[in-house]
């Protein structure tokens, strides 16, 4: 039966199920397929901290939200058009996010008495009138999957593992997508288990055909390619982009990459990605703890490699003393913090921007260092590359701030070619003149010292964590020398402002009533909200900061162009403190601390409120 195809500009889907249901994989596959169709996309995986929380419980619900469109997509969407609920718990956790008249695709087998009890339902919500506002499609996915695999010889448990493929096939039919990409993926994933290739492909096709033959739909949907700037694209996740940015910096600077780290959520995927690329000379070292990871980076950097570590808040806290040593030694290195909810162990799998003050101030003594932040999944590439450039050209440890939201989220990336990337020039010592005494802490006009590596004859020198004498680097307890050195180290970081681009107003009004001043992963949602408000005629501008320390030199002037400054952050107000401190402006915070990103609506409402009050 041929069905009509209805065009949609954008669609938001939430896949939700038990953490063992393969939800993340289903979401990722659906994303990759739509990416190949040229859609603009933004994704938001949301999963529990427990690897396998008790089955069927609310705590065990894993979700994957994505928005894909033929128009610009800068956020994974507020409310969803389609909710896929594999069981009652997944339904309960996500139903509030479904738009009125939205579609629910239900695995009816996940709503039996036990599932309902675990989800805390006295009676099935499927029999409830409250669902009248939605279009509900009920499928016994378990039964359909088992039927499709009747002759496979697999046990029931193994059969049920393919259930997600049935749902994926069904959605591919619904959105007029071909199965090829996912079939290729299945073949690679199960290359050593041909029986599982066959089973998964069969179930995928069964889901697709069920969409076709059942009378569920009167029409199918299509989302056309987005009109993105011309060029070649791929889909990329934030942590993957960060890893690629680090490798690119290593290749362009001519220095091998040393990556010392200790596994921690949500930063470990950077380690996993880098460990795959040893053929780029990447030395990835899983250290015994966070402190060792940081110290190994210092050793590698002393030896002349591009030393990198990554962690999340708790690990960064442990690295603090060694980062201070890096600052004192004035060696290049990059510390990536993929932020998560804190304090302490906090919310490991949830996102937060609450480590900005830690990056700014979280070390003993006067220990300033540059901070660069990433704003979207693909921007993790640029930010990582830039962090390495600053480290190598200014001989300093650099913080790169990402967070769980963009680290695990994905989007289309118009990837650069290697020759488009700016050059990176490490500050090695010049060729030695025999008569000259090498002064390890002699500086150039940017107050940057030269880098002499073990193995370089005539440059033998000792460095350490004790205060150093100006130029010679010898240990010094002289009071005047200490004060001068503290000021020199601070000025060296401040001077980096000369080598970074001036700040632009990213979107909206160049001057006017309200400025939304954001950093990090709030970029997409603030941009979307500001554009909506501009369309309603409100004079609101959007400035998004990549460089958090030092700030671009013109930032203070830009801030003067607005009557009100709002700083939206996924924390209790951190950038806002620094802005007020450095520029003496009456910036106000807009804060959400729920472990999840802002919705566009929340930002729009905050802007509107400002205009109503004005």
């Amino acid at each position, binding site marked *: 039966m041929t069905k009509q195809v209805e065009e949609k500009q954008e669609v938001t889907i939430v896949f939700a199920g038990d953490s063992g249901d393969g939800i993340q994989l289903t979401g990722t596959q659906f994303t990759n397929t739509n990416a190949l169709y040229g859609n603009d996309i933004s994704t938001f995986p949301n999963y529990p901290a427990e690897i396998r929380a008790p089955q069927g419980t609310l705590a065990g619900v894993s979700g994957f939200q994505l928005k894909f469109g033929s128009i610009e997509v800068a956020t994974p969407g507020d409310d969803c058009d389609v909710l896929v609920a594999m069981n009652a718990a997944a339904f309960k956790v996500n139903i509030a996010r479904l738009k009125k008249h939205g579609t629910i695709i239900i695995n009816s087998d996940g709503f039996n008495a036990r599932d309902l009890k675990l989800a805390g339902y006295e009676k099935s919500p499927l029999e409830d009138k409250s669902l009248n506002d939605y279009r509900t499609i009920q499928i016994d996915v378990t039964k359909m999957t088992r039927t499709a695999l009747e002759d496979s010889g697999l046990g029931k448990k193994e059969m049920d593992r393919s259930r997600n493929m049935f749902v994926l096939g069904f959605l591919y039919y619904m959105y007029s997508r071909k199965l090829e990409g996912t079939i290729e993926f299945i073949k690679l994933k199960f290359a050593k288990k041909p029986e599982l290739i066959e089973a998964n492909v069969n179930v995928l096709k069964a889901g697709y055909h069920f969409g076709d033959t059942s009378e569920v739909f009167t029409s199918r949907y299509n989302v056309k390619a987005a009109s993105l700037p011309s060029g070649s694209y791929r889909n990329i996740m934030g942590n993957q982009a960060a890893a690629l940015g680090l490798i690119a910096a290593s290749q362009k600077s001519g220095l091998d990459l040393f990556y010392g780290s200790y596994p921690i959520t949500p930063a470990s995927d950077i380690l996993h990605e880098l460990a795959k690329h040893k053929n780029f000379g990447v030395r990835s070292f899983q250290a015994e703890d966070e402190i060792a990871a940081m110290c190994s*980076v210092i050793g590698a950097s002393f030896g002349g490699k591009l030393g990198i570590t990554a962690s999340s808040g708790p690990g960064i806290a442990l690295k603090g003393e060694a980062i201070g040593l890096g600052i004192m030694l004035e060696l290049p290195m990059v510390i990536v913090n993929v932020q998560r909810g804190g304090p302490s162990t906090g919310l490991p799998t949830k996102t937060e921007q609450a480590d900005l003050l830690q990056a700014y101030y979280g070390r003993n003594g006067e220990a300033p260092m540059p901070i660069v932040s990433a704003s979207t999944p693909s921007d993790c590439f640029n930010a990582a590359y830039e962090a390495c450039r600053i480290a190598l050209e200014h001989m300093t440890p650099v913080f790169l701030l990402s967070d769980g939201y963009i680290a695990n989220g994905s989007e289309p990336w118009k990837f650069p070619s290697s020759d488009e990337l700016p050059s990176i020039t490490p500050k090695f010592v010049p060729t030695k003149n025999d008569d000259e005494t090498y002064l390890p802490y002699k500086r150039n006009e940017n107050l940057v010292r030269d880098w002499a590596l073990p193995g370089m004859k005539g440059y033998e020198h000792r460095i350490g964590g004790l205060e150093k004498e100006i130029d010679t680097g010898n240990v010094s307890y002289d009071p005047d020398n200490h004060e001068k050195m503290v000021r020199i180290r601070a000025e060296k970081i401040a001077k980096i402002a000369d080598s970074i681009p001036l700040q632009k107003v990213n979107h909206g009004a160049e001057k006017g009533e309200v400025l939304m001043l954001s950093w990090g992963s709030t970029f997409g949602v603030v941009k979307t909200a500001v554009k909506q408000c501009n369309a309603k005629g409100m004079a609101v501008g959007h400035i998004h900061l990549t460089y958090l320390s030092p700030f671009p030199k013109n930032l203070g002037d830009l801030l003067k162009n607005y009557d009100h400054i709002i700083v939206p952050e996924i924390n209790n107000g951190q950038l806002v403190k620094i802005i007020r401190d450095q520029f003496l402006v009456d910036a106000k915070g807009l804060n959400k601390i729920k472990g999840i990103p802002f919705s566009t609506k929340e930002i729009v409402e905050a802007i509107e409120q400002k205009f109503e009050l004005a």
Partner: protein
Amino acid sequence: MSETLTKPLTAKDFATDQDVRWCPGCGDYSILKQVQSIMPELGRDKEDIVFISGIGCSSRFPYYMNTYGMHSIHGRATAVASGLKISRPELSVWIITGDGDALSIGGNHLIHMIRRNFDVNILLFNNEIYGLTKGQYSPTSPEGKVTKSTPIGSLDHPFNPLKLCLGADSTFIARTMDRDPKHQRDVLLQGSKHVGTSMIEIYQNCNVFNDGAFEVFTDKGTKLQETLFLESGKPMIFGAEREKAIALDGTTPRVVNLAEANESDLMIHDETNHFQAQVLTSFFDNPKDEGRLPRPFGVFYAEDRYRYEEAMEEQIAFATEKMGKGNLDQLLRGNNVWTVD
């Protein structure tokens, strides 16, 4: 400089212009002298040698060595050296640490360095006290030790450093002392030749906060009675007149009178014998106890095992051979590309 090519290096070439600032009479001076004296025998250029230390009195050491050096942070010299060694396997790396630095705050990094068997030399200056912080007990101080932080005596049972290291599968453990320069020099040279992590414990007297901690082993009057100098392939004989020996009674070592002993019962030192090394690390009696065993000095154990940094190089070579040298443009492109016109 061509001049240095023809003129062999001497100990003096390894001294720096910095004033040495240990307390007068500190055992560290003797160790510095011996280390500088063996440096020319490494057959390495100065620029290829790196000294890395943590924090403590001994950790000032790199400032006095005219090589590359880093005075890092407390307990972490081993971790810094791990990163350096992975990055630059060809360098000769020396770690200077103390009993507090290596065994207390840096205990974790020490055991992990040992199991990975990086080709480095660890010189553990053991003075059984915290000197730089002015006299608190350390993880090697004996039970009941009265110090500033333990006025009624320490409650901690001490570490036996070499036993700990052997337990972490050390490939080279040795012990020497500041007051026996010749022995020290010999052990340092053997350690420097070992390919893998050489763990050398050096009994070092802190004459200010723990004077005489090792006196029974170093004093002429008691040294011969209380110490056992290990010599490869030779029976373990000691005593003022070399009249005593160690015999194994089953798995239990006993002191026997050499004249009365059956020669075949005597323990013959064999550095490759792991069981014997375990027995020797247990010679850790309090020198005040009756029937005590003498304290062994020398190389206890040496074994050839793969080094982490070499295995890392092999993996990089393997990956490069299998996948080809990394191509950045291919990496950025990935496998699923679409084009927008």
